[in-house]
């Protein structure tokens, strides 16, 4: 009983620390996003002002040209408009012709006549315009040119003054916000350190037995389903930064093991020690199912699980649910803080989508998208919570060969770029042997062998389990 209480206290302190961390992280990225937001707004404003200046200068510019040049410009402009107007009519003529030929009628003559009429109308127009803007005087008006030069200089200075003003404004806003955030972060940092010290003083296990470079250490895990031993006394160690593959015949207990790690099933006995992002050891068995993601473990599902009422980017935002630190009221009243937070994660989601090459689907709904895209969306969603360990449940199921190859590349690059460990269950031996650093084979809930892919391939016990005894 005392032990349970101690564990509960430990988890509470861990929760407090994680909350402080999430807030500090948000404060850091908030400044960047606000910077970008202001930049965007100011760029838009700049563009608008430039356009307005251009609009004001245009008549002066025309006046500064020589009569011939001016006339040419004006005629050309009106002709462009007329040509654009005619393009639709030409398409209609072509379409009528095609329909007629489909019916077997001869309509070439009619089409040519119609097109000729259109051409003729254009020529007439041009002639009329030339008549209107007559005059071929090549000398330019010097006075007008001077006026134009002066005015363009004034506009230039006005624009540069505006840019300066923008920069000042931006700096001011960022400085105020930065000061506020720094003060906040100071407080959070103190809270974080306090919790950290408490955690160190009540570490639940002996760090020596855990292993210096490991991230996950499963010890004597047991899981029964009404008498059937799905996982039987299994001990597994996963090193940090590796791609760990779990293989085994059907019914070997792979998915059960996954569900035990992510606490969908509570193991009957055994411990799952895990080193979280701050280096302290926690026992995942004490975690609630919905808290596991806060420890930095995020998972995908065997059959793709996406919310079909939400667009792809909102699905990714769902993945960031655990990282959003705004409270209920902040969300209900949609305060500035929550809006910023949403913007932070939205930009991150867009980044991830474009990394995986599916940014075009951001606003689409998942229903009806190709299976490979859905798998990528799921992978992107796991990355939204900034995980330390990703658990992939049969990522290549339902993918064809080239898609599987691409997936292998993506998994590797994700491991390298996001600094996380990958733990995967897979039936596709090519994928497992191709990308995994360590492979573990289990059968009927018991460990068969652990080692590099080559060792596993050559292991007679594994071969027997897969092919059966002769």
């Amino acid at each position, binding site marked *: 009983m005392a032990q349970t209480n101690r564990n509960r206290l430990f988890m509470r302190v861990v929760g407090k620390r994680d909350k402080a961390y999430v807030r500090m992280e948000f404060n850091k990225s908030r400044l960047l996003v606000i910077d970008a937001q202001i930049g965007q707004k100011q760029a838009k404003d700049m563009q608008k002002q430039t356009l307005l200046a251009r609009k004001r200068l245009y008549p002066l510019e025309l006046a500064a040209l020589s009569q011939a040049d001016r006339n040419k410009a004006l005629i050309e402009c009106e002709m462009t408009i007329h040509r654009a107007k005619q393009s639709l009519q030409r398409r209609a003529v072509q379409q009528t012709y095609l329909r007629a030929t489909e019916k077997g009628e001869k309509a070439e003559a009619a089409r040519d006549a119609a097109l000729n009429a259109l051409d003729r109308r254009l020529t007439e127009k041009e002639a009329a315009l030339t008549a209107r803007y007559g005059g071929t005087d090549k000398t330019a008006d010097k006075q007008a040119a001077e006026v134009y030069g002066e005015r363009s200089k004034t506009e230039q200075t006005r624009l540069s003054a505006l840019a300066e003003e923008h920069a000042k404004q931006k700096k001011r806003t960022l400085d105020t916000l930065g000061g506020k955030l720094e003060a906040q972060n100071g407080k959070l940092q103190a809270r974080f350190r306090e919790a950290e010290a408490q955690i160190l003083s009540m570490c639940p296990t002996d760090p020596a037995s855990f292993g210096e470079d490991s991230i996950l250490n499963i010890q004597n895990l047991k899981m029964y*389903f009404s008498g059937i031993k799905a996982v039987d006394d299994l001990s597994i160690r996963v090193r940090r930064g590796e791609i760990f593959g779990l293989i085994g015949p059907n019914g070997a207990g792979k*998915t059960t093991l996954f*569900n035990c790690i992510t606490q*969908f*099933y509570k193991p009957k006995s055994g411990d799952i020690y895990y080193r979280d992002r701050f280096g302290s050891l926690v026992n995942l068995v004490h975690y609630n199912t919905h808290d596991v993601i806060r420890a930095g473990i995020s998972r995908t*599902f*065997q059959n793709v699980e996406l919310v079909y009422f939400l667009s792809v980017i909102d699905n990714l935002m769902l993945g960031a649910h655990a990282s959003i630190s705004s409270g209920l009221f902040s969300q209900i009243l949609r305060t500035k803080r929550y809006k910023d937070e949403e913007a932070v994660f939205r930009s991150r989601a867009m980044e991830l989508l474009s990394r995986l090459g599916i940014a075009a689907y951001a606003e689409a709904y998942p229903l009806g998208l190709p299976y490979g895209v859905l798998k990528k969306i799921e992978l992107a969603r796991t990355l939204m919570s900034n995980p330390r360990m990703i658990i992939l449940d049969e990522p290549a199921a339902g993918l064809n060969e080239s898609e599987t190859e691409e997936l292998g590349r993506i998994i590797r690059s994700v491991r390298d770029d996001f600094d996380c460990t990958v733990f995967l269950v897979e039936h596709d031996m090519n994928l497992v042997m191709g990308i995994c650093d360590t492979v573990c084979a289990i059968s009927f809930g018991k460990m068969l062998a652990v080692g590099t892919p080559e060792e596993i391939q050559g292991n007679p016990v594994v071969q027997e389990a897969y092919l059966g005894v002769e």
Partner: protein
Amino acid sequence: MANVLQLVLNSLFQVGVLALTTMGMTLTFKTVSVANFAQAITSTVGAFMAAFLLRDAGFNAWTATFGGVAVCFVLGYIIDNVIIRNIAGGSGRIMITIGLIVLITAAIPLVFGLIPFSFPRYYMGNLNFTFLGMELYVSANALFVFGLSAAVLGIIFLALRFTKWGLGVRSTASNKVVASMMGVNTDLMTALSWGISSACGALAAVLYASQTSLVSITMLGTVLANSLLAFIVGGYNSFYGPSVGAAIIPIALVFLGMISGLWATALLYAIIMVLILIKPTGLFGTKTVKKV
């Protein structure tokens, strides 16, 4: 002590009626997975029909009862065939039952007119007996109601256990898709379940009317509420649990009524809330392990 036993005996007919209604709810819930809130109102149609046959068509009480039950069987069968089957999804089906409540409540006065109906007792008089030196009596009709309900329930349970129909219903309840692949005519099974559940409800309504001699649109209101409670007390994912719940609730109400007549229902409700807090799946329900 004699007083208590007498009160329990008085609530016997309620146990019978409640168990029948709950059985009907269970059948539809297990096969179509919809809590049939229209159960009470479709049953009331049966009571009205029986009373109509008795008064206006000149049948005797037994034939009238049979007529009412048969009409309700057909009604249930039609509801499933025409409406429920054509709707996908859970909330839509519950909405349909609500729509049916609205529709049938309005339709009954249109069909049967506004003159009030009544239904006589099957048997008159009381049975007096002594038990452990206590003078007790039980109304003959109430005993008949209880006996008939128990018999019908027994038959349904036996049928569920031993007949081909029962196997079909149980397999449909367990997994509809697989059952239909295995050659079970799931459409027929659900339609029959609706029919039988409506018939059960109609029998309950007629029996209730015979005891209270009252036939009105709202006559089964409390019975429906109690049967829903029985449904969660017993655990709605088992076949027999709700029936046990139906036996518990009227008797619990008798005992709670002795504590405070006014607050009996509220107390019962509080107790059920605590029970659910402790065991969310009900007394006989089992927790299903979800597949991830």
